[in-house]
């Protein structure tokens, strides 16, 4: 079984984020990292390789030149090789454009199982996995809290708003995993050094046969017109519990009509 893991290079969540004049995230001006939510997918793929269920694990990213750092991190955790789609024309792509590039790259790389995180930690859209599945005509099982592969069947548990479901799909399939699947291992120094020797192939839109007009700004189906920081909350009342804390809390709740 060949697994391709989709990974994204995102701004460090705790850093101070800036936006470029075109209202996209200023990725060059902010420290970046492999999205923590994708690390869970990298870990699952590595476990499947260790158990013998997978014989090849490839990491795929679409992003600026710096995104290679994210691929190196994934390769330190596991995997055999990586593919980096990088092209200036991709800048400004919406989820539709990104999913098109990913699907074309997947067709080129070949796959039995595509693993992704449940969302990116920056845009948090959670729609790319389903879009990729739809474009590939592959099976799909999203938001897996648990994952196992038996022959050509992938089984997952997913918790929706109304039920905890057990779903099985046959390969080829696209599966997104949540942070319930288990923390990624911390790569040892030797693994970090070893990752530098693993091959990373770069591809352009032309290599994939994607028309630049379908992606980036020209192909965008939506555009951000305003980004503003969530208004700071006005400072509230903080009291020390000197024995009356509970009563003061009850007064506050009653004053707002909650009790």
């Amino acid at each position, binding site marked *: 079984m060949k697994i391709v893991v989709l990974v994204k290079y995102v701004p460090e969540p705790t850093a101070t984020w800036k936006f470029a004049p075109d209202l996209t995230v200023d990725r060059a001006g902010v420290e970046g990292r492999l999205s923590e939510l994708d690390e869970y997918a990298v870990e699952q793929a590595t476990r499947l390789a260790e158990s013998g269920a997978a014989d090849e694990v490839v990491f795929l990213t679409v992003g600026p030149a710096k995104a290679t750092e994210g691929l190196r991190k994934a390769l330190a955790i596991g995997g055999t090789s990586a593919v980096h789609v990088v092209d200036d024309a991709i800048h400004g792509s919406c989820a539709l454009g990104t999913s098109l590039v990913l699907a074309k790259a997947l067709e080129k790389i070949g796959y039995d199982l595509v693993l992704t995180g449940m969302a990116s930690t920056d845009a948090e859209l959670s*729609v790319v996995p389903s879009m990729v599945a739809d474009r590939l005509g592959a099976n799909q099982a999203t938001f897996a809290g648990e994952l196992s592969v038996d022959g050509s069947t992938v089984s997952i548990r997913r918790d929706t*708003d109304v039920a905890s479901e057990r779903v099985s799909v046959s390969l080829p399939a696209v599966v997104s995993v949540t942070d319930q699947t288990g923390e990624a291992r911390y790569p040892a120094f030797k693994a970090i050094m070893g990752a530098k020797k693993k091959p990373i192939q770069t591809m352009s839109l032309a290599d994939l046969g994607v028309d630049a007009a379908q992606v980036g700004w020209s192909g965008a189906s939506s555009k951000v017109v305003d980004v503003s920081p969530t208004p700071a*909350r006005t400072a509230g009342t903080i009291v020390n519990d000197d024995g009356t804390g509970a009563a003061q809390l009850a007064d506050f709740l009653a004053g707002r*009509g909650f009790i």
Partner: protein
Amino acid sequence: MSEVPRSAETTAAGVRKPTLELLTAARALGEPAAVVFGDASDQVVAQLAEYGATKVYAVGSPDMQAFLSLPKAEAVVQIAQASNPVAILVTSGPEGKDVAARVAVRLNAGIIPDATKVSVDGGTVSAVQTVFAGRFQATSQVLRAPAVVTMRPNATSAEAAPASASASSRSMWPSATQPGCQGRLPRAQGLQRGPNSPMPRWSSPGAVASARKMASASSRKTADALGAAVGASRTVTDQHWAPHELQVGQTGKTVALVYLAAGISGAIQHRAGMQSSKTIVVVNKDAKAPLFQIADFGVVGDLHAVLPASSTRSPGAGADRPDALTPPEH
């Protein structure tokens, strides 16, 4: 006016609250039509009409149960192609996201997931999203109609339509695996749904969350006094002290109205699920806990002392519980 189909989720007890919120939001965009997967009983149709649906498409097919999002997405695509709506609204959630994503691909339409507000101006739909772990509000415009928007539950309130709304008409939509769809399911045959275990409802607009194992009993009591749900931080769900569906945060649920956090430090991933709550109350023994910075009211103290004592006060006279959670307009 343009139609706004939106998919309705129903339960044995009637239509789910997030659906009524969608209908309320859809009324600002056009004339809402509702898509019901499964049985559209008279009771369901009447309730959808009460919230403004002027048309109900009932999509009945056994495939709805046998497959995940695909037949639903296909039905919505067919209805959209027939009715040419300005927008398609779906409730955010694992299934809503899957359906919306496929619909957007098939219609090559702009998608805005997890919107908290949606509006239309001169035929162009815009929506507001909370992004980057809740730190920014982004407003996006859809450039290719129809706008496919998934709406966060509890972000808007559900309000019945003015009495003048015209009565709903109900039309049965042919099963989604009729011509045009089967061919799009080439590899979906292998899918099975195993036995499902029911999940507790997370419909409460408020929550009392605690990070401490021993605090669950006091949280429960406080939540009951408030008519709210119990939530948890990931530390708690990772330890299996509480089930994952109670987790609040980036990879959990979002709370919109009132939030009482007891013994939670306030990591950005946790804040992502609660910082837009209208009222935030924090109890923590560490005066430096970051969550105090966004609290409307905070008590520096031991939650084991503060929580039990605060919930012994009986609910205010005549306070109806769900309403009692709705803070005064401001």
